[in-house]
């Protein structure tokens, strides 16, 4: 018997292979050319008929042909499947410029963000947070803080009086008075944040209600340098080392010496603008060494202890934080304002 025509087998396979374009047909083609009834299998069966001196050579040719068919089919499968994926992807063309879908994340108020930042800084220094009432007595709001009746300092804080003789606290310093009165052991390091009220005409930059954060540190040996160090630490931590700050004399009845911290206006970089009233600086906090009279009021010996007291105008700080020029905006409930203030991020 003559040796089978391996080339013819391969030629017939390849002629059909080129016409096949889907995986199922490829599988059928593979079975047709390598299955039990395929010319190749038949040729293997007929191998014993081939003269002995040619048999090994023919067998090798048949094995090679089978391998080529398998290889070609596998390659074709890969090609066809890849094409199928490509075609499917093309059919799934999507306009990815359409907006994303999901629930918009809300945002904390910038005031809260600033307040928490401050509290976190203070916590690192060992401060703990305390709370106090907003409806207060004149004693804690004024008298205990060295602001006697008829003192002009009371004009600094136009007061909302509440029927019954109480008042709405005009500063969070009331909490300091309450803490000192409770006579905790030294060192005292407490902070308090919250709403305060001023009975004045409201405009873009004046509010009847705004926020403050107050702190007091009482211990032996605290100095004016410590006061400055603490205030500088807070201001620079919040606004960055590169943002200029300055210290200036102020007057608060409950501290002596009193000090204010100005931050270079972020809106104008010190040139003067609407948000800083042309000053180039914005006062963000007031502070001082606890006044001897306040210590005496609560039974401390001012010769033996000293104290640092400070109040952060968190509303104004949030204004500088966000760049908002009219702080009234911070108290709007119009969510367009909040989205603009926070960028939707908390």
């Amino acid at each position, binding site marked *: 018997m003559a040796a089978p025509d391996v080339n013819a087998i391969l030629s017939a396979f390849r002629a059909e292979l080129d016409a096949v374009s889907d995986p199922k047909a490829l599988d059928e083609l593979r079975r047709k050319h390598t299955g039990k009834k395929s010319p190749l299998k038949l040729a293997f069966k007929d191998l014993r008929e081939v003269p002995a001196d040619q048999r090994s050579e023919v067998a090798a040719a048949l094995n090679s042909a089978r391998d080529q068919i398998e290889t070609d089919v596998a390659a074709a499968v890969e090609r066809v499947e890849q094409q199928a994926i490509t075609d499917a992807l093309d059919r799934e063309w999507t306009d990815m410029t359409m*907006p994303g879908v999901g629930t918009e*994340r*809300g945002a904390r*108020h910038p005031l809260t963000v600033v307040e928490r930042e401050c509290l976190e800084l203070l916590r*690192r220094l060992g401060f703990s947070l305390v709370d106090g009432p907003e409806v207060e007595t004149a004693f804690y709001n004024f008298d205990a803080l060295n602001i006697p009746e008829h003192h002009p300092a009371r*004009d600094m804080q136009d007061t909302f009086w509440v029927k019954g003789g109480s008042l709405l606290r005009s500063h969070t310093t009331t909490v300091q008075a309450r803490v000192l009165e409770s006579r905790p052991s030294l060192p005292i390091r407490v902070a308090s944040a919250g*709403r305060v009220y001023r009975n004045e005409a409201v405009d873009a930059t004046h509010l009847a209600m705004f926020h403050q954060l107050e702190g007091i540190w009482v211990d032996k040996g605290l100095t004016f340098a410590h006061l400055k160090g603490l205030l500088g630490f807070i201001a620079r931590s919040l606004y960055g080392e590169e943002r200029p700050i*300055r210290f200036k004399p102020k007057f608060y009845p409950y501290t002596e*010496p009193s000090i204010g911290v100005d931050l270079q206006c972020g809106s104008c970089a010190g040139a003067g603008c609407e948000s800083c009233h042309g000053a180039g600086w914005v006062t963000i906090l007031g502070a001082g060494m606890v006044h001897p009279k306040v210590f005496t009021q609560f039974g401390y010996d001012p010769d033996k202890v000293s104290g640092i007291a400070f109040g952060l105008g968190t509303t104004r700080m949030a204004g500088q934080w966000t760049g908002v020029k009219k702080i009234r905006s911070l108290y709007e*409930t119009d969510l367009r304002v909040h989205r603009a203030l926070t960028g939707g991020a908390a």
Partner: protein
Amino acid sequence: MKIGKNILKRFTDLPEATQDLRYLLDDVGVEVKRTETSDVGDVFTVELLANRGDHYCYAGIARELNGRTNAGVRLPQSTLLSLGTSPVPLSIQSDKCSLYSITELVRTADGDLDAQAKAVLTAAGLNSVTPPVDATNVANAELGQPTHAFDADTIVGSITVRESIAGETAWLLFTEEPTELPEGTLIIADDAKVLAVAGVIGCEESKSTASTTRIYLESAAFDPIAVRKGARSLSVHTDSSARFERGSDASLVLTGAGRVAQLMASAGWDVRGTTGQVGDWSDERRTIALDIPHAAAFLEYPLTPDTVRDRLGRYAFAVSPNYPEWAAEDGWIAPQSTQERSSDRNRNTLLVRVPPHRVWDVEFAADLYEDLAKSIGYNEMPEHLPPIDLGGVPTERQQNMERVEEVLLAGGFFEVFTDGFHGRELAEKAGVEEGHPLAAHVETENAMDRGYSLLKNNGLYQAVEAIGVNLRMRTDQVKAYEWTRTFHPTTDGGCDERHILWAICSGNASTPSWDGKGRPADAFFMKGLVANMAETLRLPLTIEHASEDEPLASLLHPHRQASIRLNGRVVGCLGEVHPTVLRGHKIKRARPVYMELCTDALAVSGARPTYVEPSANHPILRSLAFLLPTGVYADELAEHLRTTSPTWLDSVDIVDEFVLDRGRAVTFALSYSSDEGARSADEVNAVTEGLIGTVAAKYGDRGVELRA
């Protein structure tokens, strides 16, 4: 107060550049709020410290600057007045006036103040009136001694400083008719009428005019509180009252009058005779002991007796020589505390005498530390943190607040702040009337704005108002929350403050998008939010049927509200806002849902979860759908299924609701455990059938039936 740069330059040397001067003024505590240019050069609007009455004049500001610059202070020339017989009988009948003087001036020629004096008026923004009035204004601006010119020909008899009696009236300047004075107001009067409210304002009947030819010039020292009371009771605030209220300098009484006389001389007015003066003021020579090492330690700045003398001397403090010289000199009387000290300590102590213009604000050594620091410059002082030990950690409440916020933020809520008070109209819009549990408020009594008359006793009013604000701005998707507190009157007239969290939403639960509208942010959305909070906090917050005692109940939809409970105690509520409330706010196209939670609940620590190994076997699931008529609650049935089933029923969940004509079909998913070994389908089916039977037995009469 407005001050002119070119005028201030007459009193002390200044930096040339306006910006440098502004910085210097700020740096010494004279805060510049505004700079403008006028006919007399640059003018600063300055904000003065409330305790520094002496700053209310050019001389005072110059002295403050001198404390830093040591450039010297130049005071304007004053006519030297001689004390003697008074041109008019004088008396003081009140302890609220320590010194009172009258100087007579007569017009000898027509004239006006010179240009330099006029410039002072221009810088201050004052109009020129008559030479006597102008001169008093100029002298006050220059030296800080208020004076007043009476038309001498209107004075009847003597001049007395006294307190007003009940029903007494005064015809105040610039008013149409006499005003009744509060009894006890410090006044100046002649034998017939009130001439002035002391330190505050003069009166029409004795004012000097263009035709006045003879004046009595008043210069005095009045008690700050008396002046303040007078000004406040009449709601009249003048440059004079501002100065006196902060404590005047009695040593300036004659000098101030002399400065007025000097100014008026150029306008053709001459002093006649001697100045009459009554009163018992004398310099108290207040002395403070200054412990130099203590001051240096307090300021962390090197100080010596010489540097202290130099710096405090610039502010006009007199500083003693070193110990023991001051103990030996007659002029120095040490305060009690120093007298008791050992000589070792006194060796390091100086005595500092407070000048009369500073007795109102300098009382302690700490006050002197402030002046030393100002002289050096706050920005030049050392700065470092105190020694610090370990910081604290946030409290459970603070941590829980942040956890709750994370739930709200993920849900798309924005934090807002509303006022602590509101007007009556908000309560009216909500339909809250007398007798309603929310009708009682803590009230302000002097609010400048009616919108601040009631302290809020709930968050809903302002939350709904916020919805209205946003809808008007065409923002339909509103999710807002606030941590705030409410105020509730107590029976003893006090106030109970409660910390709350409120949240309100309107629009869609998730952000609307182009691929579909999504579900509305309804009461179930809010319920889910609270459930998420409970899970995040690991607190047993449950949402149950509305409490009858809930004050907000009538402001919420009667069938779409629920109570939030913690361990059975009501800690809040949620529900759809009642249409009547929405109508009050003219809200027509929204159905907002509100939630209010008492944040005391957040002070509790949540339970840590106990790990339970998940079963290796898959659960066996069955579903039951029951038809529930109106009035039968799904959770009632779910609870029944749980309690009547064998222990191997792991869970009962409500998974579907389908509204039919004759009620709702609610589907319950039952998940049975197969941990005990392979349970047969027959066994599970038998149990399920049994449950159906118990439902029929218990709820059949109420119309509950299995949906086929």
